[in-house]
């Protein structure tokens, strides 16, 4: 275990470093990118721009700028260029909304995929299976922004069953859930399609394994054979991809959903920053995501080792 933690910490540091250098480096090579001009405003004259560049250190060499920015990030003092807001504070404030969006959505898509994937596998080749798999392909192929807009149009604009965008804090759980049902759904649909297909094919592989035959030969009921032996042994690949998907969503990958439904999460903030080439939020967002990817990668591995004793954590 010590070996596992040590290795993961090391790889986390390496990944954070690499991510930050790459993201930072991209802006260094983008032509006509001039952060000083952006900060100084549209009407600033050359002198002002010069002064801003001086103040923010944009005329220093790459490594010095990078070191400075990292120092600011890790001391919590970095501000964005657009609105002079403290980036770390922004992430802290907005993370609650992202969690509200992503955790229930993750549970929703995971459970739904397990149910639908199982039904599909148990009815393989029959009408229920075929229908589900066609729906799964639809779910995978519909773009999130389109699905979100359609949902809004049908359920908010036309029928007013759900509210038209916006976010309510969790202090009022009913309102909170009421506002988030459509966003949860629109995030889940894509993953349900993908996950249930993966699970179905895993299940169909596992059903033909010798140990499943043994389980039947022991006289276990069909349901017990399925849950304890088939399903249990088919969940592993799902866990790995779930860890990664969930991590990137926490890091802000739900930005389209957040933007469409106007949810003040980290994704929305990142989306704005990307639109304006505002480096600090983008950089922090990338490192934020990288952090979760490492964390959930490790958690998935631990769960994996727990579910499959043959796997040893290294």
């Amino acid at each position, binding site marked *: 275990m010590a070996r596992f933690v040590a290795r993961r910490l090391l790889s986390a540091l390496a990944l954070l470093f690499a991510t930050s250098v790459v993201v930072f480096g991209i802006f260094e090579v983008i032509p006509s990118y001039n952060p000083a001009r952006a900060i100084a405003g549209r009407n600033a004259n050359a002198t002002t721009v010069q002064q801003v560049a001086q103040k923010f250190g944009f005329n220093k060499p790459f490594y010095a700028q990078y070191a400075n920015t990292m120092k600011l990030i890790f001391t919590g003092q970095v501000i964005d260029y657009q609105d002079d807001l403290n980036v770390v504070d922004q992430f802290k404030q907005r993370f609650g909304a992202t969690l509200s969006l992503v955790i229930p959505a993750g549970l929703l898509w995971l459970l739904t995929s397990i149910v639908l994937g199982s039904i599909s596998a148990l009815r393989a*080749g029959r009408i229920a299976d075929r229908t589900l798999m066609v729906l799964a392909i639809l779910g995978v192929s519909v773009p999130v922004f389109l699905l979100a807009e359609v949902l809004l149009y049908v359920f908010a604009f036309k029928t007013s069953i759900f509210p038209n965008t916006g976010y309510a804090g969790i202090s009022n759980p009913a309102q909170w859930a009421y506002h988030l049902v459509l966003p949860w759904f629109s995030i889940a649909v894509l993953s349900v399609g993908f996950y249930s297909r993966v699970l179905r094919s895993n299940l169909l592989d596992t059903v033909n*394994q*010798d*140990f499943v*035959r*043994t*389980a*039947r*030969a*022991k*006289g*276990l*009921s*069909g349901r*017990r054979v399925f849950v*304890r*032996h088939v399903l*249990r*042994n088919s969940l592993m690949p799902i866990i790995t991809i779930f860890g990664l998907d969930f991590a990137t969503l926490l890091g802000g990958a739900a930005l389209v959903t957040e933007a469409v439904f106007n949810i003040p999460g980290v994704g929305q903030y990142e989306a704005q920053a990307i639109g304006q080439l505002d480096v600090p939020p983008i950089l922090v967002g990338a490192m934020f995501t990288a952090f979760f990817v490492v964390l959930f990668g490790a958690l998935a591995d631990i769960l994996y080792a727990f*579910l*499959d*004793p*043959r796997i040893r954590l290294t």
Partner: protein
Amino acid sequence: MAERLLEVESLQVSFATEDGLVRAVDDVSFTLDRGEVVAIVGESGSGKSVSVMTLMGLTRGNNSRFGGSARLLGKDLISASEHDLERIRGKEIAMIFQDPISSLSPVHRIGDQIVEQIRAHEDISKAAAFDRAVELMERVGIPRAADRARAYPHEFSGGMRQRAMIAMALSLSPSVLIADEPTTALDVTIQAQILEEIKQLSGSGESGVIFVTHDLGVVADIADRVIVMYGGRVVEQGTLDEIFYDPQHPYTWGLLGSITRMDREPPRRLPSIPGLPPSLVNPPEGCHFRPRCPHEFEQCPKVPGLEARVDGSPEHKDRCWLSLEEKRKRRVVGDQIGLARETVIG
């Protein structure tokens, strides 16, 4: 006379595949008494495994069709409902498989897998079932069973895994134990140990054992009666000595002749049966062995019945058109079974 456990009559199993109907088992009949070992011998595709898995209901599926009957203590297994079968499987009939690593669940502890089976049939506490699992493991020769019961299959050696499988199969003292090539994946010294284990079991008179194998050496070591299968059909069946010393079917002759024996000076060439086993989708008309048989004649395109000789034991049957005189004249099983030549009747 020992109690009759199992009566299989004209068992037929076929599977619908994309290539057509596969007649995996075509007219198999045999009986099993308590305390005896019946070996089913055949090569891959002979239908030996499918036959025994069908007894357990393990070949049931959307694409399978069954015919005939298999009565376990009077109760038909072929027509039994899935629910009834669940109660019989593991309790009345248990099975051990060829490959003990893939046949045990990789993610459950050995002891728990045995507990699971006990508790599927008996209403006892987990702790009590676990104690029994440990006892069973001790009985089949697993050292430090109390510790080992908490280990996972991958932490066991091949031989120990197969012992664990046997312990599991014996957990509810089944009347019938089916062993499907249980030693094929094991080393020879371990095979010898496992065979001892199974011999003791049948010797104790608790169960009847159906032993499926392709290895005639193992058959000679363990069986009381032998069923030889080829292309989904029984081609010959009889007692161990009848099959080895008075074989009636040309396939049995070929099989006995192509054994490699390490206690004899090797022949210049190993006798072998030319050609390949038949396709089960599109089998040869009549006798399935016909295309490989050097004794084929005009009768062979008709399916021969499985019949006993007039002057022989009524239980020694074979499926061949050759007359008794012809068989005696033509029978050569090579130098490999020396005794066969001496004891040929007639």
